[in-house]
């Protein structure tokens, strides 16, 4: 593992391109944060790395397009995975024409339904955490995810996406409905319960 080239510095991790067993790979390394006490820092880094790797593997089994995991290093908070040479959905969402944007939203909705069918909660579904590669939407960054079957968690999961679209793609905030409709048609459970839950969560926010 040489030639670390940092391509993205996120809030909690550093993404770099490395050589892993003679191929290009992505290394996600969680960074130490000196603002928090050592105990909390170590705990958050190792538990999130472990949880994330587990969830990515489970998501793959559920039929969701996610990067393939090559290696995990819990002590140093590293996950080595497939390098997806695509584009961040955040960067292209506003630029697409309506037809392509609709198609994209449908793929997003379907993938989220596959996750939720297996009770996988992503925890941070934003357009920054999706990559369009080979015409498929890849979900990345399961760092805040968990396994949970409750309607509440699924509702919160979708609410995070709704807020992200409202804040970053405000002109196209209605496209959340397309995502939700496609989500509903692939969900094994009754999506009405989740819709009601989202409405409840919106009202829970301050001053709604």
């Amino acid at each position, binding site marked *: 593992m040489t030639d670390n080239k940092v391509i993205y*510095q*996120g*809030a*909690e991790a550093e993404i770099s391109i490395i050589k892993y067993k003679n191929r290009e790979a992505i290394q996600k390394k969680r960074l130490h*944060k*000196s*603002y*928090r*006490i050592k*105990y*909390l820092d170590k705990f*958050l880094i190792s538990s999130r790395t472990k949880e994330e790797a587990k969830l990515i593997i489970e998501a793959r089994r559920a039929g969701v397009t996610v990067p393939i995991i090559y290696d995990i290093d819990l002590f140093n908070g590293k996950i080595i995975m497939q390098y997806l040479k695509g584009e961040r959905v955040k960067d292209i969402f506003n630029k697409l024409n309506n037809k392509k944007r609709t198609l994209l939203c449908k793929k997003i909705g379907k993938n989220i339904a596959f996750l939720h069918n297996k009770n996988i909660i992503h*925890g*941070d*579904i*934003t357009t*920054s955490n999706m990559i369009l590669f080979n015409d498929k939407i890849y979900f990345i960054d399961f760092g*805040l995810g968990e396994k949970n079957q409750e309607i509440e968690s699924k509702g*919160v999961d979708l609410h*995070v996406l709704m*807020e*992200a679209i*409202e*804040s*970053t793609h*405000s*002109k196209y905030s209605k496209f959340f409905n397309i995502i939700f409709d496609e989500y509903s048609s692939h969900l094994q459970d009754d999506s009405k319960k989740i819709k009601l839950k989202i409405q409840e*969560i919106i009202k*829970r*926010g*301050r*001053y*709604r």
Partner: protein
Amino acid sequence: MISLGIEGTAHSIGIGIVEKKDDSCKILTNNIKTIKPKKGGIHPREAANHHAKYLAEIIKKSIDETNIDKNDIDLISFSKGPGLGPCLRTAATAARALSLSLKKPIIGVNHCVAHLEIGRGVFKKCKNPILLYTSGANTQVIGFSEGKYRVFGETLDIGIGNCLDKFGRIVGIEFPSGPKIEKLAKSGDKYLNLPYSIKGMDIAFSGLLTAAEQYYNKKEKIENICYSIQETAFAALTEVTERAMAHTEIKQVLLGGGVASNKRLRDMVKTMADERKADFFVPEKKLCIDNGAMIAWLGILMYESGTRCKINESYINQRFRTDDVDVTWRD
């Protein structure tokens, strides 16, 4: 332009007079009077009565303190919301009375946005910050994006100040509990596990509060509980702020709200900002807590960019969302 601002969203009544000169904010006076309930939380009616009792007196004192005549005031600003209805109505009534008697225009402003704008007003370098706004009722991460102030993250249940005050009430620390919890935390040396709850860029504190109460019932040392509450809650706040900064690619961070007085929270956010090579700003305490100067300042910005408000439309809005504000004064 000179504006007199009346702030009355919750337990404080504030009168501030500010002047806009060369695009920066000059504070001529900033007086705050706060009701301290003998026990329990703030009762909206009692807070409103408190405000009504002292309003005229503080307005007079504020104008007398500055070297201006009351007719030099060009604009009356008031806190339109969000906040407690009776308190907001009391402040708005005073604003209307002043506006009519001085024959000066009136303008209602958003309290949360005022917290951000005052930072931009007093710090020349603070041009486009992410605001971590932490007070009793509010805990929001706010930034400017696509023409509006957007809430990137906020509490899903209670505000952090409210969380600290509620814990204070359980263990018998009087209101406001934040400063005493901070003092006790300094002698804490053992970290007790508490729920660390982040959902995307949103945050929740009620689980932490319940767990902290359980530690208290199990006779854990109060210093250690306070230490653990601060370390956990503030780390989570710092993390969501950093997430918003990474998400928006904004390189400035500003603190606001009463809890911004806490030195540990300031240190954490400053450390985070330093590591990201971002600028860190925190206004003086009087401009962090609820105050009239920030209301007056935002009033000027809105008025100068063309916003007008008729006296018969100068109503309040208890649920005035940050993202409902039409931002006319920024590109």
